[in-house]
């Protein structure tokens, strides 16, 4: 008997090869004749030119979870191309009306305080706006959206609590909505950035209704075409867009998911995409890329070095403001900005970005001055011990920064701060944590110091972050004077009343020396030179806010 091993091995390899080609088959339907492959290749080289269609290819970061903008935990750039809200925030940190004719204010009569203290807020809606399926958009859709957000399922909406002050939603006619508020909520213009279609979602479990969450129906400039999981989402021009026939000016947008930031840069450099967001320290690599331009969009986001006084040890080390301020003076922010961030960002001295009308430039600045830092620490009673690290009452001036491994640039900053503080006799240690573990630790308030950061809406309210009872104040700091100013600013509607209060908030925070603002973040976008109309916005609603007026080519 001849045992033919050779044939067996060969047949195994054949099986593997067959399986392999079987898996490729689903992506290549209807087996294209061999002669056609040359033609498809030519198309691949210049897809934007295919039948004169203007296609915008976007190298997008992580794949998103759901296309329901209200329940998504990702930024909503993609949804914004398809779904409109009553408002949108622009590149000047201001809110602009979208489906509403204007944003109600006390001045234009849209906001009226009733005798019983409730507030009536009237939104006039555009007429003749059509959903992508041809149904008309009306005030019923707005009240339906509110009903969903206020329902139990609406807990999935991250800012649900902000909507809870609305006690009634009235529809005097199809183009008018009246919200009745139980009290003043200054940030009302941040709400309703998305409106759901009642005729599609009524009676459905919105959270799991795939027909909407995987292919949303909106009133926006683009219509959903296709979502290939892990690959891309494709949207095409809405030919019946309510702003008029001239919009949108691009025929199709493809968002390709490229999670790795280095790959994203390589893909842009290879000319495969027309637009993509990169990291601040990658800007140099693409600065001189032929046919492309770089736009550094100032983000509504600031990076801070902050302490925690919620723990006993934190109290001992950091409750004296002079110790905190001394440490701030020992940190060379210029070196961090120039050296680590390659000069792409701007040093921050307050929480509110200069792009916001609420920014206050007149606050104390913690300039780099190690001599002064040492002197202040001496005066505060912290004197160098045997190992050069300062001590007071048997306690060493030594603390641990928890680093988040998904933010390598922040770890680099922590390392720089470690070296700078060593020069003034302060010891810094590190604990590196995986992303979710870091978040949990941070929420638990059981930590000593972090390099943190926030991104805020165009509205400047900071109450949730810094008030004594603020839902996201995990630092243990509590300043009643600051609370008073912040809460007062949340309870007035008009810019003229609110601006001085927010100025005071920024001043008080800097004087208290609770945290050291390091820099205002930037969002660098690389785009084809002939992409016109891009006006990057650094708010939580992102840079696609005016995508309807973008154009490609001449």
């Amino acid at each position, binding site marked *: 008997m001849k045992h033919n*091993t050779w044939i067996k091995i060969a047949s195994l390899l054949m099986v593997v090869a067959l399986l392999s080609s079987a898996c490729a088959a*689903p992506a290549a339907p209807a087996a294209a004749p061999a002669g056609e492959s040359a033609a498809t290749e030519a198309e691949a080289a210049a897809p934007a030119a295919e039948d004169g269609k203007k296609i915008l290819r976007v190298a997008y970061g992580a794949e998103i979870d759901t296309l329901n903008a209200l329940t998504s935990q990702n930024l909503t750039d993609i949804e914004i191309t398809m779904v409109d809200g009553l408002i949108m925030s622009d590149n000047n940190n201001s809110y602009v009306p979208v489906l509403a004719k204007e944003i109600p204010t006390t001045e234009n009569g849209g906001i009226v305080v009733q005798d019983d203290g409730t507030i009536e807020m009237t939104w006039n809606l555009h007429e003749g706006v059509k959903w992508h399926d041809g149904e008309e958009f009306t005030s019923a859709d707005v009240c339906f959206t509110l009903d969903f957000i206020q329902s139990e399922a609406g807990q999935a909406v991250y800012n649900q*609590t902000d909507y809870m002050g609305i006690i009634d939603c009235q529809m005097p006619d199809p183009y008018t909505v009246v919200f009745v508020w139980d009290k003043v909520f200054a940030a009302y213009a941040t709400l309703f950035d998305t409106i759901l279609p009642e005729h599609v979602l009524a009676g459905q479990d919105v959270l799991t209704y795939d027909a909407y969450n995987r292919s949303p129906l909106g009133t926006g400039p683009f219509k959903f075409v296709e979502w290939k999981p892990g690959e891309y989402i494709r949207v095409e021009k809405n030919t019946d867009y309510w702003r008029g026939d001239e919009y949108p000016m691009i025929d199709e947008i493809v968002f390709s998911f490229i999670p790795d930031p280095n*790959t994203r840069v*390589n893909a842009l450099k*290879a000319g495969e995409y027309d637009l993509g967001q990169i990291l601040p320290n990658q800007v140099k690599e693409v600065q001189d890329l032929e046919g492309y331009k770089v736009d550094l969009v100032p983000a509504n986001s600031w990076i801070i070095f902050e302490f925690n006084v919620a723990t006993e040890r934190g109290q001992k080390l950091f409750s004296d403001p002079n110790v905190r301020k001394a440490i701030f003076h020992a940190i060379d922010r210029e070196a961090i900005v120039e050296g680590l961030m390659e000069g792409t960002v701007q040093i921050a001295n307050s929480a509110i970005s200069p792009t916001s009308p609420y920014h206050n430039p007149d606050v104390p600045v913690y300039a780099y001055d190690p001599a002064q830092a040492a002197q202040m620490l001496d005066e505060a009673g912290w004197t160098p011990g045997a190992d050069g690290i300062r001590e007071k009452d048997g306690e060493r001036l030594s603390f641990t920064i928890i680093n988040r491994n998904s933010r390598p640039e922040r770890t680099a900053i922590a390392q720089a701060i470690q070296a700078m503080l060593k020069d003034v006799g302060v010891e810094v240690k590190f604990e590196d944590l995986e992303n979710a573990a870091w978040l949990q630790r941070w929420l638990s308030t059981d930590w000593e110091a972090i390099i943190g950061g926030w991104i805020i809406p165009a509205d400047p309210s900071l109450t949730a972050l810094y008030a004594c009872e603020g839902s996201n104040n995990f630092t243990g700091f509590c300043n009643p004077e600051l609370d008073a100013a912040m809460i007062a600013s949340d309870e007035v509607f008009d810019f003229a009343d609110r601006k001085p209060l927010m100025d005071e908030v920024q001043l008080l925070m800097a004087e208290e020396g609770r945290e050291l603002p390091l820099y205002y973040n930037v969002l660098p976008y690389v785009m084809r030179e002939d992409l016109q109309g891009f006006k990057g916005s650094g708010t939580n609603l992102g840079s696609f806010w005016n995508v309807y007026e973008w154009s490609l080519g001449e």
Partner: protein
Amino acid sequence: MGRYAIRRTIQMIPLFIGISIIIFLIIQAAPGGPETTLLATGRFVSPEILAAYRVRLGLDQPIFVQYFRWLGAALTGDLGYSYTSAQPVLTMILERLPATIQLMLSAYLLAAVIALPLGVYSAIHKYSILDYFGTGLSFLGIAMPVFWFGLILQLVFAVQLGWLPSSGRETVGDTGLVDQIKHLILPATVLSLLYIAGWSRYMRTSFLGVINSDYVRTARAKGLRERRVMLVHALKNAAIPVVSIMALDVAGLFSGAVITETIFAWPGIGRLFIQSMYARDYPLLMGIIMMGSILVVVFNLVADILYGWLDPRISFD
């Protein structure tokens, strides 16, 4: 052999239950829960909303209750819903599976086609230039960080030369086979490198062991041509251990695909795994890891059976 396979298959059932318990516990023991994704984009969310989120997902229940709920559903084929996308886990896995299998098998074939001849050649021409080259390549393959090698290939072939696409599985709007193959080349090369390194070494060693054995000497003594002795008589037996190692490595390839898929934006299971890991998407993680363990256990069995099938000296009882 049939009875052996059936016995081994039945033994897998308690094994899978044991695996699922351990994985379930380990996943939930990792610090940080799915509610932390609510904070991922730097938004501020109140602790009350975070707590309500856990309740909505049933995570406030004791862990054994959660496990038996999962197991009960899983036995009926329901792997639950992803926390992040609210889609059925099984649907999500099946959507991504073809891309992963395509990449894995391409890398597998590529590795086999290069590693096996290289190993044989290195053994026959011991200490030749190509043998040293093979040794060097192996060290390089084992030592080179995958993510770095991937980025370098992108820079050379996509950015500098423009021959191949940098990432992705297809050019949007192009369903041609040529386009697909172009997209496959770089990730498959990166993924196969480690296996080229390993298999060529095994092949070389195994071949060297065989060519000094008696039956090879007998074949030579019969006056057979050297080429025939090497490529028919020696290779046949030398290949047996290598083939079973290759079967075991199928499961290993799956874990290698995690990094490769992320770097090349390949829409497979590996990337889904990374995403679900960061999001602490427990049901999705369970689904993917269970699938991975099934792969390991099944290919262990395949390796054992193949070994006996190829080598009649092995008996199964």
